[in-house]
């Protein structure tokens, strides 16, 4: 077991990225509240965290759960995503540049699981196992949601 560093280190090392991810996922206005909830939830659970090896993945996963909660609480609406950092990874998916607004509007219109899988994979660069952990499903199911999501986006944006 790796020793847990002081919690402040997590904020210093990953706070900016968490904020960027949240701005991408819920927009600038919701991001501040989600940021608070993310780090409070992390702080609550921190002493019981057995493994200090992937703190970045852990806290970003929490951020995505909070973003999903945020959307659930507000009902399904298109995502106001416009953050450069968050969409940088999207090119990998075969999306063209210069179509970001349309892309994220389309991502926002996906069913919640597919939407979450797509943003976790391409905005936060999380591996399938961690996406599965974030969504509370099996890696297989996470892979399927991601696949379905991308298929649908390709069709929407074609």
């Amino acid at each position, binding site marked *: 077991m790796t020793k*847990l*560093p*002081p*919690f*402040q280190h997590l904020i210093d090392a990953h*706070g*900016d990225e968490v904020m960027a991810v949240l701005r991408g996922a819920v927009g600038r206005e919701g991001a501040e509240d989600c*940021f*608070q909830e993310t780090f409070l939830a992390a702080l609550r659970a921190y*002493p019981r965290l057995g493994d200090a090896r992937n703190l970045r993945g852990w806290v970003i996963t929490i951020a995505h759960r909070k973003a999903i909660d945020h959307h659930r609480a507000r009902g399904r609406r298109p995502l106001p995503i416009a953050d450069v950092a968050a969409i940088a990874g999207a090119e990998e998916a075969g999306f063209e540049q210069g179509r970001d607004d349309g892309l994220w509007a389309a991502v926002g219109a996906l069913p919640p699981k597919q939407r979450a899988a797509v943003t976790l994979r391409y905005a936060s660069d999380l591996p399938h196992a961690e996406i599965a952990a974030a969504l509370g499903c099996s890696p297989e199911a996470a892979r399927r949601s991601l696949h379905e999501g991308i298929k649908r986006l390709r069709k929407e944006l074609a």
Partner: protein
Amino acid sequence: MKASTLERLRESAAAEGLLDVAYTSTDSPFGPLLLAQTKRGLVRVGLPNQDAEELLGDLSARVSPRVLEAPAAFDEARRELDLYFERKLERFRLPLDWRLSDGFQLAVQRRIARIPYGRTRTYTEMARSAGNERAVRAAGTACGRNPLPLVVPCHRVLRVGGGLGGYGGGLEMKRGLLELEGVLAAQSS
């Protein structure tokens, strides 16, 4: 991240009882001091020559990993330390959390806390007052492991015959503190 974002997080954490260890850095005539406190009181003082990261790592392991920087929590500690360095305060009134010490070391350190301003004791006297006259070396170790230097004034403990002995912050600082308190004549340099 904006300062207000972090301030809000600290406040919520404190309100929910999640701020197990708060810390800050504060200036002193000898260099920056690290101050750490729990809900019970001041738990650790780091001297300028001590590695702050190492101290915080130690607090994370021994007290709680819920360690957050929280400068506003230290207004009173900062005020008392400033007054002390200006020779306007002889006794600290800050609540102390002794959880980092136990046994004979704790007994010695609690007695160090009662040595009056501007006075000194020897390691032998500290060993005796803690109940074991022969444990002079252990008393020296207890001084060296004092988690709350300055506030628990281990700089007032000297060798028999007046030798300075040791100090976690370096002998220059120990001499400086004894000069500040008027125990040693200020050296012209």
